[in-house]
């Protein structure tokens, strides 16, 4: 029912997709797997009308289609669940579910029908009771994800794309989703299932396509492959050699930062110690409190209970500024929204934090000169430091953000998904910087959804679940250990 032929797409000269072929049959669950930045999300957006392909063709239901927007794709019968929520917090559940195709009777939106259909739809999904007439803003994250799925289904989709649908779901909700996917499949709907979680892929799919660096590596029947084989296809390299070496026990210094009983709206009873010279990885599902932990430490959404000590002395980190003064730095997972200032130059972006903290006039030119060196040292590739940063690739943007913080000489460095959506070369450069920071005596906390990265980089791994620290793993733990802790399965 869906056939992609040699689809290609570039952003600002960076090739994101290159000659990708893909087929989905009715009643088939076709999984798409690949590392971060492999091009999965871009591919899904092309199918669902979010982007137009630069080359190649999309054939849907026997016709070659170029969707001019999401609306056309939806009308044609392609539903999509995005990684980010596409819900309006001020509108009710029913209004969100039926946005764009509200049921109409005699010219007016039939509210009763809409509520009834929404309830029925949610019921058919096996979701728990939900206030369909309440604003989405009042729902929890998991409930919102259910609404998001209902929204994608509401338009009688013949092809449903699910981009990491379980990322925010709790166990029993994942089970419900499984049941739902199977039910849809049995109804003859084709499903494209994008996931990091190989276990899910094996549970659900008939076929699996592996993407790597924007190309299709292979498409295999699920029954005829194994996890190991898939991982080899996805990674295509020897894992152990790829990451810079870990810290030797002798390199690990004294405890720099301690959190005792830290809590706020999203976190509970967090106890954490970060040592100089050590990279501490943080694992867990999306929404488990990983990001909230980093944001609490950096004072964005501070701890409201508990105590934070730096060098054994209590500090009050009430704002990013306070955190910076204490020597803490933070690289957000949302590079576009919270990292870069898109229309300013590379140099302006790199100097932003230094300027914010202030400095004497006399120190200005020296600071700028140092920054130029630093940008060279982290190997930022641009047409010059005066180029606007939005024209750089994601990896180079991230290097600029890193330089911004390195210039301040942070003692505690917090990374949230530092390599998400970044090409392989830049990723490895960033890994090197992370490790070098630790070697130079900083305490590093690194959040990552990318399990190989988490396992490869960390000297110690903290796994979070539901706002708490679920457990700690030593270097050399397996992916299974992390996942087990993250989802709360008994190991």
């Amino acid at each position: 029912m869906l056939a992609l032929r040699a689809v290609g797409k570039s952003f600002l000269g960076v090739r994101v997709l290159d000659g990708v072929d893909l087929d989905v049959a009715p009643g088939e669950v076709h999984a798409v797997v690949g590392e971060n930045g492999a091009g999965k999300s871009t591919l899904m957006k092309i199918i669902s009308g979010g982007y137009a392909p630069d080359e190649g063709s999309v054939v849907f239901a026997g016709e070659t289609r170029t969707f001019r927007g999401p609306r056309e794709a939806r009308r044609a019968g392609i539903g999509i669940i995005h990684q980010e929520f596409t819900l309006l917090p001020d509108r009710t559940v029913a209004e969100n579910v039926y946005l764009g195709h509200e049921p109409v009777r005699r010219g007016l939106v039939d509210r009763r029908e809409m509520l009834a259909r929404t309830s029925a739809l949610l019921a058919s999904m096996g979701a728990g009771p939900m206030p369909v007439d309440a604003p989405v803003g009042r729902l929890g994250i998991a409930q919102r994800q259910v609404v998001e799925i209902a929204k994608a289904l509401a338009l009688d989709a013949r092809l449903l794309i699910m981009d990491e649908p379980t990322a925010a779901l709790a166990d029993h909700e994942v089970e419900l989703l499984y049941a739902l996917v199977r039910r849809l499949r049995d109804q003859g709907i084709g499903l494209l299932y994008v996931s990091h979680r190989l276990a899910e892929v094996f549970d659900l799919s008939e076929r699996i396509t592996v993407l790597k660096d924007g190309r299709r590596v292979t498409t295999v029947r699920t029954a005829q492959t194994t996890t190991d084989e898939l991982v080899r296809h996805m990674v295509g390299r020897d894992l152990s050699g790829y990451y810079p070496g870990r810290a030797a026990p002798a390199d690990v210094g004294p405890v720099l930062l301690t959190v005792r009983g830290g809590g706020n709206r999203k976190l509970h009873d967090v106890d954490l110690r970060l040592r100089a010279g050590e990279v501490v990885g943080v694992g867990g599902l999306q929404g488990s409190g990983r990001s909230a932990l980093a944001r609490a430490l950096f004072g964005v959404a501070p701890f409201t209970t508990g105590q934070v000590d730096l060098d054994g002395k209590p500090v009050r980190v009430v704002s990013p500024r306070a955190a910076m003064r204490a020597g803490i730095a933070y690289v957000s997972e949302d590079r576009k929204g919270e990292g870069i200032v898109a229309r300013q130059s590379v140099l302006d972006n790199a100097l932003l934090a230094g300027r914010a903290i202030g400095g004497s006039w006399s120190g200005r030119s020296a600071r700028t000169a140092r920054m130029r060196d630093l940008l060279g040292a982290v190997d930022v590739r641009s047409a010059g430091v005066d180029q606007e940063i939005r024209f750089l690739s994601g990896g180079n943007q991230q290097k600029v953000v890193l330089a911004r913080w390195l210039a301040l000489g942070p003692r505690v460095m917090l990374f949230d998904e530092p390599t998400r959506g970044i090409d392989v070369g830049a990723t490895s450069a960033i890994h090197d910087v992370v490790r070098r920071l630790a070697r130079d005596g900083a305490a590093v906390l690194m959040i990552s959804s990318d399990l190989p990265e988490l396992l490869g980089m960390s000297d110690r791994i903290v796994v979070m679940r539901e706002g708490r620290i679920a457990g700690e793993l030593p270097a050399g733990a397996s992916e299974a250990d992390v996942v087990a802790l993250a989802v709360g399965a008994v190991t």
Partner: protein
Amino acid sequence: MTTGDTLLRRLPRVRAGGLLPILVILGVLLILVAIRQPGFLAPGSLMSFLGRSAPIILLAAGQYFVIVSGEFDLSVGSLVTAQVVIAARLIDGEPDRTWPVVALVIVSSAFVGLVNGVITTWLRVPSFITTLGMLLILVGAVYFWSDGSPKGELSEQFRRFGRRAFEDVPVFGRVPYALLVVLVLALLAIVLMRSDFGRTLVAVGDSPRAAELSGVRVARTRTIAFVLSGVAAGVAAILLGGYSGVSFQAGSGLEFSAITAVVLGGVALGGGRGAVLGAMLGALTLELLFALMNFSGVSGTVRPAVQGAIILLAVAVSAARSPSD
């Protein structure tokens, strides 16, 4: 984002917020004026033209700080009116009171900017509303205070800033004080925008989240922008009161002129884009347009339409050129 990616490659690379478009418009207008009125380009008349354009150039610069930080200041016009009226009443023709009143005008204008900034950033009232309210309050209060009719008189000492000039300057002939004031302040503004504060201000307008997470005190930065706008309005009030004397019409509508000038100068409403020099050139362009209309005898009633058409045209063209959003 989507279509922009492909467009970007097709369009010639003009740096967004660049000065090229405004320079082109300004150049075209200058040529038209020169054809229509060759004497205009003689040093004497050019100087006096620049001198009388000083207040709106200052207001545009002040408005630029606010707009580039992502906000609006609709209160500047009524602030100018209020200051002119207050200055006249306080001076009441006494030359001795000139300097204290000049100081008071600037300080109190800064204070109004501070109030605008604090209400906008702390109480989270959109600046459009804050400054709209401030517009009503200032004009209402000053009318109320002076019973609906300006009282007192500006001293000649006060008026000279906006009215008098250095006479017999070689080459230039006559150099209005106002021109010197605006040159000095323009230079300061350009230097300020190249300083740490200036770069931070633009960052705040472009991405307040990124700025905040880099330790920028966003609220404080924006508040300073409002204060700068207030000070610019204060100085503009001194020059304008000097140029034309006291009246309730002194500042009316200047907020829209200033915003128009800033937008003409290639500065994006919403923040993060454009140069202060562009904003000031935008103001100069607007003044030149009015002069051109005076020179070519365009009927007074048609002028708003010409002005509207040129604004829409300039902005539509630059919107079509700018690749994203």
